């Protein structure tokens, strides 16, 4: 039993830890990197971390997917929470839209200033 709890705590640390690590890596890229494409990639990584966190919160130990497929009809008692999954589905689509618009703005900036590095765009300085 104790072995199982130890295992469980490793899983907890692993799942939450990787999600939080993804968020921190993305934040680092957004704050430190100078290239705009890398900043957009950082935003996408934050997105991935938040989605992982969401799905991890909804998980129930030993749970199945919330789908009543044949042979699984009376599994209500061991299904995972479907609400975070539905929310993540929305969030992924919004994340895609944000990335697409951000990339188009990067392309526009690149065409205008001939560089995509924010430290070389002089007109942004004051």
């Amino acid at each position: 039993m104790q072995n199982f709890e130890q295992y469980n705590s490793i899983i907890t640390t692993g799942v939450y830890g990787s999600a939080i690590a993804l968020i921190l890596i993305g934040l680092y890229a957004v704050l430190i990197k100078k290239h705009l494409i890398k900043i957009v990639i950082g935003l996408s990584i934050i997105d991935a971390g938040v989605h992982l966190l969401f799905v991890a919160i909804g998980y129930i130990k030993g749970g199945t997917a919330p789908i009543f497929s044949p042979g699984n009809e009376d599994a209500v008692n061991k299904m995972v929470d479907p609400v975070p999954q539905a929310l993540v589905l929305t969030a992924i689509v919004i994340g895609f839209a944000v990335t697409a618009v951000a990339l188009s703005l990067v392309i526009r900036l690149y065409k205008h200033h001939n560089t995509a590095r924010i430290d070389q765009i002089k007109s942004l300085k004051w």
Partner: protein
Amino acid sequence: MKKVLVLVLLVIVGYFLTDTFNLIPFGENRIGNPQDEQTVAGYYLNNTVEKTSVANTVTAIVVNYRGFDTLGEVTVLFLATTGLGSILFRRKEDEEEIERINKPSSSLMQTGSRVLFPLIALLGIYVFIHGHLTPGGGFQGGAIIATGFLLMLISYKNFKAGHTMLNWVESLAGITFVSIGLWGLLTGGTFLENVLPAGELNNLISGGVIPIIYIAVGFKVAAELTGVLDILLNIKPKK
């Protein structure tokens, strides 16, 4: 200096995130007793099968219980495509050919993608038609179809995605979604009410309007993502 500040900030953010999530043990039953219909998850898990006859609870939530939200989501996607088009729009200067930025690919790639494209499209259509029975749905199926188009766009330099066609597909799918919503309003219910008979669980034709809406969403997402890819690949590099 800046790096040190950022690292300090990251440590603070990381500490508080870890601290918070230590209070929420992973894998613990947080929805309480699933038979209890007072909780959100319990209500969905207990009522989806009886009321909508949809096997995939996530689909039922996304399309039926939170259908209005999904309409907004699809609108956001549409606005992103439109915004992308308007930000990157440039007038063609006389007789100038817009060239794709990628290099022409090998004949191996071209033949391979010609074989794979119908199969990928078929998989995408399967995923969104069975959105109420199996994992997947309109958004996922649409994204799969768009990857097929991406394969064609990067392997054939003169493959045109046909923006008139894409706009028509997108508009018709959007109109279908909204008119199904209005249909519910006209029959005396609420917007996006499930007006069709629910049918039998795990049949292809079941769940009332949910499969129809998800098929429309699938076409809409496929057209929008293909449009985005086409716009992004057709930008002309600066001379």
